[in-house]
């Protein structure tokens, strides 16, 4: 028994502790805890009618993608003798392999007359062909290329239609026992999907959040009490930020606020309010967030690479910026997922304007969702002059022609990157802000249907 418990404790200390805490009060039925990265903890509380002494219990309705090494069966007054996970599956191939040495019935039908003949044969060997002993003849099955039916008497004991978990238990007394089977499985996962309706003129956004649960485990979990954990306990990350490094997309500044949402260690928990049936191959969505009038604004961003000259004007990215702080209308943690942004068209109908991913976002964070590119707001960067001023000194004059074909003035954020800490601005037509060693940024107001040219001369020493 200990053998199976130990690895669970090593890998998932937090989970094992929570499991221990709820052992006594576990309600009957299924409880499922789902993590983000294709991992779930299934706890199946059920009544087992056991005879006294040793008996073998089969659990056929466990997840088809169970991780058998994580199985634990806990019950008062019983000891676990051994656990087996048998995945020798019943198929025509395995039937024939297991039939070596036993008798089968072979049925031949004369294709011309339709007359059926039956014979008893002993399967001698199954090695690249089936060798049969029929009476005193030795034959290879289907050597003549004609169809032959092979009828087996019974299913061999260890062949099963689906992988089966069995536990041999040793009960102190006969009768009903409350037991809890828990295991980890893949094939269950969740993420969040957000619907954001952005109103540019009001500077506000309505945002709904849905938890999206997917089940590809091959098993239907009926009436399960479901808990979703926003976190990745084994260190992998579906958002691509390796081992927690690198801010996930969308996050500008991580927040520091908290609310009364339940936590498990550093992870936030999203319990579903009602028991639910998670059918096989089902995608289930349950609402968890409905915020109205969240303050949001639109920004235009473009980053120019070092010495990048563009002969065609390039569109600024359209970015929707908002905070999930308690002030501002959206005070909640946002689990990782996709934000789909909509805006109303002239007829008032919501139209899709772009989507992007966010990572797990603590409350109070600044978020920026890049929805697409602006058709009418563009920049054409040109490296106008490169001059060598001394042995290791260069002067570069850049011009950035920003055009706005919209009927309203806009303010754009234009960044020049590639400064490497070695380049500084000598002259510029508009005051810039040094964001970091590598980047300067201009906030450029551009009039309606207008054009602004920003120029800057950089001096580089190396």
């Amino acid at each position, binding site marked *: 028994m200990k053998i199976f418990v130990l690895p669970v404790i090593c890998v998932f200390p937090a989970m094992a502790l929570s499991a221990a805490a709820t052992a006594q009060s576990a309600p009957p039925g299924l409880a499922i805890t789902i993590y983000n990265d294709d991992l779930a903890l299934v706890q199946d509380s059920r009544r087992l009618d056991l005879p006294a002494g040793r008996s073998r219990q089969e659990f056929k309705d466990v997840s088809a993608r169970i991780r058998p090494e994580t199985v634990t069966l806990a019950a008062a007054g019983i000891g676990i003798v051994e656990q087996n996970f048998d995945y020798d599956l019943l198929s025509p191939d395995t039937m024939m392999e297991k039939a070596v040495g036993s008798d089968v019935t072979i049925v031949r039908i004369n294709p011309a007359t339709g007359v059926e003949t039956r014979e008893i044969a002993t399967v001698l060997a199954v090695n690249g062909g089936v060798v049969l002993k029929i009476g005193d003849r030795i034959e290879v099955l289907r050597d003549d290329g004609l169809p032959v039916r092979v009828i087996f*008497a019974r*299913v061999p004991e260890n062949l099963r239609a689906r992988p089966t978990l069995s536990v041999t238990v040793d009960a102190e007394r006969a009768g009903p026992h409350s037991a809890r089977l828990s295991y980890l499985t893949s094939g269950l996962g969740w993420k969040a999907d957000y619907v954001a309706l952005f109103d540019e003129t009001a500077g506000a956004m309505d945002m709904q959040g849905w938890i999206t649960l997917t089940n*590809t485990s091959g098993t239907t979990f009926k009436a399960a009490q479901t808990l979703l954990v926003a976190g990745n306990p084994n260190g992998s990350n579906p958002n691509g930020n390796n081992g927690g490094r690198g801010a996930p997309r969308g996050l500008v500044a991580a927040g520091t606020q908290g609310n009364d949402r339940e936590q498990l260690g550093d992870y936030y928990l999203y319990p579903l309010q009602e028991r639910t*049936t998670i059918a096989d191959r089902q*995608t289930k969505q349950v609402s968890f967030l409905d915020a109205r009038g969240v303050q949001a604004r639109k920004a235009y961003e473009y980053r120019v690479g070092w010495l990048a000259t563009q002969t065609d004007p390039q569109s600024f990215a359209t970015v929707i910026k908002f905070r999930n702080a308690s002030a501002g209308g959206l005070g909640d943690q946002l689990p990782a997922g996709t934000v789909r942004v909509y805006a109303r068209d002239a007829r008032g109908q919501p*139209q899709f304007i772009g989507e992007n991913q966010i990572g797990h976002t603590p409350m109070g964070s600044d978020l920026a969702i890049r*929805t697409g590119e602006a058709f*009418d707001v563009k920049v054409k960067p040109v490296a106008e002059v490169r001059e060598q001023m001394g042995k290791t000194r260069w002067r570069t004059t850049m011009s950035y022609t920003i055009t706005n074909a919209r009927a309203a003035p806009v303010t754009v954020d234009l960044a020049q990157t590639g400064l490497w800490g070695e380049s500084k601005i000598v002259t510029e037509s508009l005051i810039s802000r040094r964001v970091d060693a590598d980047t300067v940024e201009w906030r450029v107001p551009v009039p309606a249907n207008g054009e602004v040219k920003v120029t800057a001369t950089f001096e580089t020493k190396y």
Partner: protein
Amino acid sequence: MRLLLAPALLASALLAAPSAAGTFVSPAPEAVSVSIYRPPGRSGGAIDLDDLQGFALISETRTITIPAGETVIRFEGVADGMISVSAVVAGLPAGVVEKNRDARLLSPAGLMAAYLGQQVTLVRTNTATGRETRVPAIIRSGPDGGAMLETAAGLEALRCSGLPERLVFPSLPAGLTAKPTLSVTARSDRPVAAKVTLSYLARGFDWAANYVAQVRPDGRGLDITAWLTLANGNGTGFPAAQAQVIAGRVEHDAEIADAVPDAGDFTASCWPWNAGTAIPLPAPPMLMREMMVAPAVAMMSDELSQIVVTGNKAVREDLGDLKLYRVPQATDVAARGQKQVLLMTQGAVPFTAIHRFEFTAGDAETDIQASLLLRLKNDAARGLGLPLPSGKVALFETVGGAPMLIGEDDVRDAAIGEEIEIRAGQSNAVRASTGEDADRAGLYHIRLTNARNVQVTAEVALFIDDNERLITTRPRIGKRDGTPTWTVTVPANSEIALDYRAKGRRQR
């Protein structure tokens, strides 16, 4: 609560749960709006009708009536390519408990899996006598790797007798659906009838803009006709739909859409050492791509120039930073079909024809053909002045009374006020050679020749290395986009020369 532990009671409780919730099936939308988006990566290029990479936002109006209590509302007649996680149901007076997409499909494999361990009928026909025998059989193995059946005679594999064999299932198992199905569980304290809006993103759509530009006989302007081509690769059609296309780049990740795969195929097999006798079931019908109407867009542009415009012209509006083009009347967006509407027609748009060469200082090259460029300014003063979505341009010139294709190019999204450049191919008549002077080292000549009987404007860009500079140029060189560039006139049937001297800078 403890009582629920008894297996029998538990089972009945579970059976009771779904029957407590009634089901309302909404078979089809009453009104539908389809907004088509291009894939973010594609701006110009033609659409591939066999593999439409774009997507659409579909908004449907449906009327539902639900009784008091919990009701499962099933939405049928949605696009096959529905990205169900994007589905939003608005206008439900009652609370939405959950939204589900079920993809356990009614298929040979799905039936086999659902009937595992249950009794079906095995029907066998003796081909010689024509006699049919029916025996009850229990399915003993899952759908992967062949079916084992248990009959009164014993166990045997399906389709190994050489006789036609089929399985007859007594009824449809619960939970299997013909197509992935979206349903919403709603709860209401009273019976209600409501108009709801179901909106969702769906795969398998695309659109393109195609411009046909005809050089006027006087050679001074272009007559431009542009068409929007909308394509729907779904098996679902949308009759009398409000249709829109959205221009501009939209972030969309097709990969992350729906993670749940469809059910696999089922193949009956005997055992592996009997090649030739395993009879596979016919594969389930696939999407018949051949059935698609596929008139190639590029091919059509020839005919398009002759099409009489009937006035179904797209109406434009701004949608945030994108452009929305609306088909003015309700239109049928047919299943696996494409349709075209007029984007714009504009006559006599002035353009500048440029013969362009690009050299690097110090090059020695002979007989280079000019690239012919047509430059247009997208403003109202010069006949355009409207946002032009990226697309393909076919350029025609009338030769001997018939239009001839002289070039084809992709143009990018052009906002009002932008310059548009159409590459019309290489010129045979305008050529250039360049090289160092025979006697004076460091002096370079570029010789431009014009064999046409009209004068042409040539643009010669001279790229130069960072550690070099031009000392003398004749005529004096200008600059375009940061690159030293001459813009010169080459008279009819004559040649001109450009000279320059370049020198390395102080060495570091």
